[in-house]
């Protein structure tokens, strides 16, 4: 066991910190889930890319720095501590990219990844449908082979597509053998889908923004009416979409989506908020302080649990169903952190203007955590069945 970072890692941390200190926009950018905010965030993404900070862990020829997992964690810690902008590119770089690295051809990687790194292509996720949320295998959007054109024709509807109203591309699952699903047999449901990469700016695609809880158009419904996708935009094999997608949902729950740095930074800010409230005449509240301490301990626990996971990944282990525990933990921690801030703010918590407005917005954002990427109820089933070995039925 060695709990120190190497000299080069510390060097990397210093460089990142210095760059962020100079470059992080002040005041903070407006929400990236509005059209003008999204545009400002893309400028920021371009700036990150130009400094080779947009995808540090990728190979340098694809826009990254070949950073190790440790360096990636360090980058994330510094990024969130610096209060840098949310990543509007995150569904591409954190969810799709690992899948392309695993299942994409070399040609696809060269064609798609650099533009993702630079923000020229922005990717949204096309998983859920109106009748297939937690039950992802219940999707009915379909793709029909068009051999003469060398591709597929998509039809159907995706929903709750994060930033779908602003992104250039969508990745998602479509049924390629509808009759297998109609038969209702479980294997049929899972083995008749294909993973497609779809350009959104083309005939047949209709995108309708949907207001999220916080009033931003953070969601979209995406309708497909005879939309063409060429063969080279199929990721993994035809009819193998389910296993390809499962690799992505693994990332979503696991390491990449919500790194510990995010919660460590929030816990820090919560401690500062508490001190400020006291300094400006508020009563010291031992009970709230104790709960803030607990949230801070939990953020530290998440950090060290991740360090253990990364050590094992570096040793060559695969991540498994444990990632469901990680998702349960950070999503509930996030809600607790934001709730504590609202508690400190008392009657000022409801304000969405002024100095404290970001806390309510962050609370609304945090409330999505226990729902998306597989509800926490589903995650608990996974932990019980796959980590503890309890019987399914």
């Amino acid at each position, binding site marked *: 066991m060695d709990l120190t970072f190497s000299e080069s890692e510390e060097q990397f941390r210093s460089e990142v910190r210095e760059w962020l200190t100079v470059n992080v926009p002040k005041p903070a950018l407006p929400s990236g889930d509005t059209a003008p905010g999204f545009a400002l965030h893309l400028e920021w993404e371009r700036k990150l890319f130009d400094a080779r900070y947009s995808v540090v862990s990728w190979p340098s020829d694809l826009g990254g720095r070949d950073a190790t997992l440790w360096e990636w964690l360090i980058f994330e810690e510094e990024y969130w501590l610096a209060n840098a902008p949310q990543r509007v590119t995150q569904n591409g770089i954190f969810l799709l990219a690992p899948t392309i690295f695993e299942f994409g051809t070399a040609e696809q990687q060269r064609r798609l990844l650099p533009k993702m790194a630079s923000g020229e292509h922005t990717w949204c996720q096309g998983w859920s449908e109106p009748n297939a949320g937690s039950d992802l295998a219940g999707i009915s959007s379909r793709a029909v082979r068009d051999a003469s054109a060398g591709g597929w024709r998509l039809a159907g509807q995706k*929903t709750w597509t994060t930033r779908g109203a602003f992104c250039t591309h969508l990745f998602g699952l479509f049924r390629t053998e509808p009759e297998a699903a109609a038969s209702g047999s479980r294997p049929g449901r899972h083995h008749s889908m294909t993973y497609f990469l779809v350009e959104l700016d083309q005939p047949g695609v209709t995108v309708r923004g949907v*207001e999220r*809880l916080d009033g931003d158009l953070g*969601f979209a419904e995406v309708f497909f009416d005879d939309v063409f996708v060429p063969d080279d935009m199929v990721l993994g094999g035809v009819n193998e979409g389910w296993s390809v997608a499962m690799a992505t949902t693994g990332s979503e729950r696991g390491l990449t989506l919500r790194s510990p740095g995010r919660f460590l930074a929030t816990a820090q800010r919560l401690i500062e908020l508490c001190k400020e409230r006291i300094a400006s005449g508020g009563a010291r509240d031992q009970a709230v302080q104790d709960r803030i301490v607990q949230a801070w301990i939990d953020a530290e626990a998440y950090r060290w649990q991740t360090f253990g996971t990364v050590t094992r990944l570096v040793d060559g282990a695969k991540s498994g169903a444990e990632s469901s525990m990680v998702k349960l933990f950070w999503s509930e921690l996030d809600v607790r952190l934001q709730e504590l801030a609202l508690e400190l703010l*008392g*009657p000022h918590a409801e304000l969405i*203007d002024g100095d404290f407005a970001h806390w309510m917005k962050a609370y609304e954002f945090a409330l999505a955590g226990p*729902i998306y990427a597989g509800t*926490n109820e589903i995650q*608990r089933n996974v932990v019980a069945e796959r980590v503890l070995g309890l019987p399914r039925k």
Partner: protein
Amino acid sequence: MRFEFSQEQFQFRDAVRDVLAKTCQPGDVREAWNNQTGRAPSAWAALHDMGVLAMLAPTEAGGLGLTELDIVLILEETGRCALPEPIVETALIAAPEGWVNGTDSASVSLPESPFGVWTDTCASVVTLTADGVRVAPRESVRLTQRESVDGARRLFAIDMGSTAPIAPVTSTALAFRRGVLGTSAQLLGLADRMIEMTVDYVKEREQFGVKIGTFQAVKHHLANARTKLEFARPLTYRAAASLASRDALASQHVSMAKVQSSDAASLAARVALQCHGAIGYTTECDLHLFMKRSWALERAWGAANWHRRMIAQSLFERL
């Protein structure tokens, strides 16, 4: 001992519920998010016509001379429909004291709830402070608008200028208790409505080939929320009775009511959102109208923590 409302009280409650079901539908609350006032004028007019606004005003002033106990169920109904109107401030605080009458409305602010709501369209502005109650016509007061997560709640910071107190500290105390009681009652209605909406939803929504309401996890979430509400209601009703009878411990009783109803609404909102899933996370779903009102009211007039601390003082500090 008889801890139950009278038939008349229930019947009036039902009549108000019927009227609000017509005049304060979710569409009306959405309308209040977007109109210039944040309010629902036809609901307000209907409540006035039914005599609700004047229920606590003395009969000599043309009121009905009734008590907190007579109005508490009505206020619960105004929570159930997320009525965007200053009903607590008007019917429970200002009208009984003669600070407003008719269809006029009042806005109230105080240290624990520093923003007035709908103040710009109220006739009277009331502030409760440690040295007494100040009342002023809206025109004489300087307002600074603030924005609430609940788009129907038009908030204002209030500058009363040099207005002198018109009522003593005892009036501050009574007005405060009435405000806490009314807010508690609204939170009960909100909690009940959110549970009801969610029950309806999980009975219809299917995933994995079954209604999601058949999953034990969903059942247990909702059972917990319903149980929490079951043990919040009685303390609000009891607090209403204590205020009506000017019980010496009324202050403690309204604090208990606010603690319990805030926590019940908070849990109901969490459970409702979680059981609705992503659908509840959009503003197209009505849930958010009720959830955001809850978030605001849980912390208005003293949050649960604040009231617990008040009770702790009486239970512990005087050793």
